[in-house]
């Protein structure tokens, strides 16, 4: 089939933007309902946790370096190091470990 690439690009851009823009523009007021508010309070943590684990274990070229990076990130984050230090720290561990194994 010879469908033009730009048409695909346009469609995916529009669909993706609509998903993101509708809640932000339509929900202008503060939601008062306690259950909905509680739900939205938990959403970010649950989403990020689901996205991180177990995907982090297989993100690198070996499960061992991925696991080590995961543990180092947990430790650094527990000690309240900032985003940058945690991210760079876990990358560095992976890099060094993969030099050895």
């Amino acid at each position, binding site marked *: 089939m010879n469908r033009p690439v730009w048409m695909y690009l346009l469609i995916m851009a529009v*669909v993706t933007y609509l998903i993101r823009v509708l809640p932000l523009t339509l929900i202008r007021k503060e939601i008062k309902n306690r259950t909905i508010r509680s739900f939205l309070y938990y959403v970010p943590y649950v989403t*990020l946790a689901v996205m*991180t684990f177990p995907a982090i274990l297989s993100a690198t070229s070996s499960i061992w370096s991925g696991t080590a990076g995961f543990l180092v990130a947990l430790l650094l984050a527990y000690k309240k190091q*900032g985003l940058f230090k945690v*991210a760079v720290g876990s990358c560095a561990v992976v890099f060094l470990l993969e030099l050895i194994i």
Partner: protein
Amino acid sequence: MQKEEEKVMQHNIIGKGEYFRKGMQDGIPIALGYFAVSFTLGIQAKQAGLSALAATIMSLTNNTSAGEFAALGIISAGAPYLELAISQLVINMRYLLMSCALSQKLDPKTSILHRLLIAYDVTDEVFGISISVKNRLSPFYTYGAMCVSIPGWAGGTCMGVIFGNILPGSIVSALSLALYGMFIAIIVPPAKEDKHIAIAVLVAMLCSFLFTKLPIVSEISSGTRIIILTVLIALLMALLFPIKEEENHE
């Protein structure tokens, strides 16, 4: 310090630059991680037959990893437009939840223009740092993060198409952990303070792990898995442990 921040938030005139700078700073690890991921995206885009320009435009207009990876397969197969639209809708539906949460993080008076601009880059990562700022979110914080992360994402895609085979694998491998490291830096500190968040995080990780291992459910795509687990677990937590009223704008 806390008081000062609140004052800045309320007036929203002072400190725009400061929020912007802070956003840029927090955006650096995002940009690094993006570069690694989008570099591999670029390599795949080339294999799917996209030019560097087309791939870069795709990344600039979509800012989403899973959605773009899926789209490449559909484009190279020359599949119907509807199939592409549905795949993007399903894979990116999690952004709908994130945007709902962000709408509550913004000052209700935030103008429509700010809302339109923020919506352009609601990604897992930019959302993650935006939702974790204290008190209300200043749009300028998000703009700062966007200014470094968007070029990281689009630039990485472009470089991946052009220089696919030059960057050593060991560096790409190490960099691919940056995004996850950042997620952990976002969820762990609040989990230390609020045991309900800790419960939610542990349950979410356990379920996510089971979903990738158990038969049948492991067939579900990662985008759909994220939506199903987020809705179920967050709803369950909301019913079992509703927030106290003073936790409003945590």
